[in-house]
């Protein structure tokens, strides 16, 4: 990219990062949508940390839970699609960050917590959720959709229309 702050190589790398995170979100969403009867209830019931009470309460409220399940399934899918396409990238990044913050807070790898759920690694404060969140922050602040993504077209059209009406 012929930008003052980032080279094309740097912007391509960030775009690859954006697409990879989007891919992960999209599959997490689609896998839940196509599962026979996915629900966040199990995950929420295992909640730990300062917000455990809130998550467990949510698991016990069928109406709220049903909505939370829908929002999670469709939200992840939508965020994934938008990130891959680079459409409304900033909004999608923010949405993705919102989801991950919730996932992170439900089962945080804080000092003194011992989980019985098997994990594939060892974590202290920073886990893969947090790393993915940081990746989305990078995508958010660099606006990678306007480099390679539908945002570039949208912004082009938007800009021109403004000029046309000006």
């Amino acid at each position, binding site marked *: 990219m012929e*930008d003052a702050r980032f080279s094309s190589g740097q912007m391509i790398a960030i775009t690859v990062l954006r697409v990879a995170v989007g891919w992960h979100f999209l*599959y997490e969403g689609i896998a839940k949508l196509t599962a026979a009867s996915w629900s966040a209830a199990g995950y929420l019931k295992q909640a730990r940390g300062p917000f455990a009470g809130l998550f467990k309460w949510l698991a016990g409220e069928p109406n709220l839970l049903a909505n939370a399940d829908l929002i999670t399934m469709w939200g992840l899918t939508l965020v994934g699609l938008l990130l891959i396409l680079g459409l409304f990238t900033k909004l999608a990044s923010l949405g993705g960050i919102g989801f991950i913050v919730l996932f992170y807070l439900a089962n945080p790898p804080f000092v003194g917590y011992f989980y019985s759920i098997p994990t594939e690694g060892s974590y202290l404060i920073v886990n893969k959720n947090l790393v993915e969140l940081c990746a989305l922050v990078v995508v958010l602040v660099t606006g990678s959709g306007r480099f390679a993504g539908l945002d570039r077209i949208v912004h082009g059209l938007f*800009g021109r229309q403004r000029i046309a009406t000006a």
Partner: protein
Amino acid sequence: MAGEDKKGKGAVQAGTAGPKKLDRREVLMGLSTVPALGLFGYAWSRQRRYQQARLQEAAAQPVAAGDLQEINVALLGAGAQGQVLTDAMLRIPGLRFRAVCDVWTEYNQKRVVNSLRKFKHEVNGYEDYREMLDKEKELDAVVIATPDFWHEKHAVDCLKAGKQVYCEKEMSNTLEGARAMVAAARETGKLLQIGHQRRSNPRYLHCYEKLIGEAKLLGRIVTINGQWNRALTPDLGAPDRYAIPDARLKQYGFRDMRQFRNWRWYRGLGGGPIVDLGSHQIDIYSWFLGVNPSAVTARGGTLYHDPVTHEWYDTAMVVYDYDTALGPAMGYYQTQTTNGSQGYFENFMGDQGTLLISESEVHGARLYRDTNAPAWDTWVQRGFIAAPKIQEVQEKDDTAVTDVRESISPDEHLVPIVIRDPFHQPHLQNFFDAVRGKATLNCPSEEAYATAVAVLKVNEAIEAKSRLSFKPEDFTI
């Protein structure tokens, strides 16, 4: 990004063309990540095909279905237990699902119908089982997993309509209901298998036939201890948008959605944990001992839950007396629903050995040879039991107090039967084998009736606060 924005807008401004004339480079860069979506779609479709193939594989065993007479099956009651049975039946070859009946048309019925259609079973959904029996003329068998208080009506009507019936336990919430079911089975000459699925479990069959029957490894069984410890679980709910209209709930005997979802806790509908959980295990007591109990003493109560919404006892502690062919025996049983530690198991103690057995793989089955019993090497050689576990040498702890009267810990032998199928599959398989005339039922209604007599009496004994006796004729019809 800010710098790029300026640049981008600058480029467009420089173009000054109409809305359709986007710079080619802009369009290409804009669409550059779309192929990633195509790649995702390809990978996902591959993944879907793989998963479908695995499901189909699991559903259809490599048995030549052509050699099997296909059995047309309907599921009556598509709740949690109905789903468990459906999952197990999908692994049994030669079954053709034709119908699913459930009054919760908004949710359960739809879920099971959709999942069966995925397996290419063309099923019709019904709310009213009578309509199903009227319309689905070609049905051979009906599998019933409705709430206990519906079993009598459902089973009797299905039998009278000429169907073979597999009905979940407890066969009824009343003995009158259970008797009517046995009578209908006898009258129609149709099969009625009750879902005490341990009766077909290879591990239980091995212990019953080989270890207790043939090798007599326990000697004379004198005491039994069985438990089902279930962790605290919140009551079931349902989203409002899936709620069953009040009129339909009332029509099918439920006060409201809460009662519908949690019927097991309500008098007149279910029997509480002693019936839901205890029934499975108390059934094994009589089976392994070869006799029905002669008396029962029980204490229990709603110690933890709200008695308004949990009408049946959440805790029960029971002692049965038995007069076995070898002498008297006693069986203790405990069920509680506030702590899941140790799960569920039955422990049979004889004068030569102990059998700790469970449907769960957590406990599996293990045998302990009592020190005065003859050596079991022959049975290890014949593969009835595994070689004894090597006892680890304990580090001496000088502060520990040892009592000279303490018994030496007995040898532990694992029972080499591992269950890889869903728990209910062998019992359903036995039923369908019987439908084809290739087996006899492992739990016909008469057997299940005797268990219902023993189990339903517990709630009576808790209320009476006294020891209640059984007469041998109580168990027969």
